[in-house]
């Protein structure tokens, strides 16, 4: 772990405090995973954005891991002189499943707006300090308690809910 961490620190030209990361994994040459608990995630992202100058957020993926949620920010460190990108998967772990809340990174990336709202839509993960945490993609009349990407809903159940919703909307019209 320490090898990967020091290599990443060299590339980014910063020092990352030891207690901010759980683990740094070198996936392949020039491709890293940073795993961070959600209490420290905002401070660590601030270092990556302000000191290392990372400005490009590609997307955010949320997923379930055991009894918690993980949120993964796919960010790119760009070196313009060498025309090179270092992809970093910034994984925030241990987000409580019953009351999922995690800091919003919208202060650093404007693009986080769409992706965080998408996670909220599909998983119900609430991003603190996001200026308008509303649903983005699902239909307006979609039931609020159903978060379709959760494992507790099977493909067949989601299909049934969707068909019922379509039927209900066509009857209302």
């Amino acid at each position, binding site marked *: 772990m320490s090898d990967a961490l020091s290599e990443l620190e060299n590339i980014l030209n910063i020092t990352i405090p030891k207690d901010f990361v759980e683990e740094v994994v070198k*996936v392949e040459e*020039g*491709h890293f995973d940073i795993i961070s608990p959600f209490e420290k995630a905002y401070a660590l992202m601030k270092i990556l954005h302000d000191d290392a100058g990372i*400005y*490009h*957020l*590609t*997307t955010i*993926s949320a*997923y*379930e891991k055991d009894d918690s949620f993980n949120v*993964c920010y*796919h960010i790119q460190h*760009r070196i*313009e002189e060498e*025309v*090179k*990108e270092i*992809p970093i*998967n910034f994984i925030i772990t241990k987000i409580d499943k019953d009351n999922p809340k995690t800091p919003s990174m*919208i202060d650093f*990336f*404007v*693009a986080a*707006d*769409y*992706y965080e*709202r998408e996670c909220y839509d599909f998983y119900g993960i609430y991003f603190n300090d996001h*200026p*308008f945490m*509303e649903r*983005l*993609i*699902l*239909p307006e009349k979609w039931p609020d308690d159903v978060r*379709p*990407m959760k494992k507790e809903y*099977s*493909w067949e159940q*989601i299909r049934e809910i*969707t068909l019922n919703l379509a039927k209900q909307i066509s009857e209302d019209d």
Partner: protein
Amino acid sequence: MAEDFRSRFRVLTDGSDAPLGADHHIFVGPQHPWAEEPAHFIIHVKGERVVEANIRIGFNLRGMEKAMEARTWRQNTMLIPRACGICSAVHQNVYVRLVERLAGIEDQISERARLIRMFSCEAERVHSHMLWYGILAHDTGFDTLFHVTWRDREIIMDIVEDISGNRVNPALMLIGGVKRDLPKERADKARPMINDLIKQVEYHKKVFTEEASIVNRLENVGVLTKEDAKKLTPNGPTARGSGLPYDIRKTFPYELYDDIDWNLVYYTEGDVLATTLVRLDETLESLRMLNQILDRLETASGELLQRVKPRISEGKYMTRAEAPRGEDIHYGIANGTDKPERYKIRAPSLGNIDATLKRMDGEYIADMPVILRSYDPCFSCTNRVMIINQSTGEKKIMGQDEFALKAIKAKKYNRPFF
């Protein structure tokens, strides 16, 4: 700060939520003759100038990520190209590379298989870019150029159809390699067609740079500066038109792109003309790349398809590729079974919306179609089918209606199609 977030759809029932200074509000979509895909734009204007533009998305959710969790890795190979009507090959390429890495066979893919994959991806880039600048010409009111580019686009469509059997969804890739070879006789057939197309695209570029009626319509329209581009994180040609020289084929090479001679294209002007020229130059680069790939295929050898076990061992991996529209990213998590635990797809257009809406600020309403077109909203164009009688070799081209009518009649009276 709030004006930066364009995904917020303002509530306008009492007019209280309108941005400062706006006196009229124009609603475009979800169904609109301009846009072939459902998206809802709202444009706040003061007089003839745009104050702010917002978007509402989500009319086309198909639930693919959820559907993939219910299917095996192998079945998903044929579901994944359906993520996009135009850039299907690149989605499949990202997917198969991800699964190969998780299965630990990414080093065993032969040079020949990789070259055929690259051929498919580059041919797709050519036809996608040509489609786009054809429609851009149509939006600027230059319909002649629209017809000329779409006529020439048929050349690359014929090549794709010849090597894969399909026009827009070649589906050549499988986990472990490719499913079809590109034999020498087909390569020899394709080469003169590619050279013809290079001449045609050079002519298109000449029109786009020299014809005053189209240059005036695009130059200095919807300027996106490099600072704004860094902030709003566009990708692909939208970013490369604003001076961000990032193309994943160069910045994080995959397949054999670092082994082939090609130039990175980028412009610094930031207007719609710059993104157009990026795409025109890229089309030429891709066509030259196709010729190089065909040359290398003459000597490249190796097995086309490796064996892969259906169960993929636990792990997670992220892959990206340069789609015609920009950065295509997939993130897959395997749990040791034959089905994915989680699969995330982000197609490039979502990342480009913010930057495109930013381009609208302070522009004339009349420039709206051109600017909104600049990020390349995509649609399918498979409104024709060719039927070949296997025994006689007779060919017949028919439109969708004719085909449907014939199919219904054939089923109703239980008789053969021909």
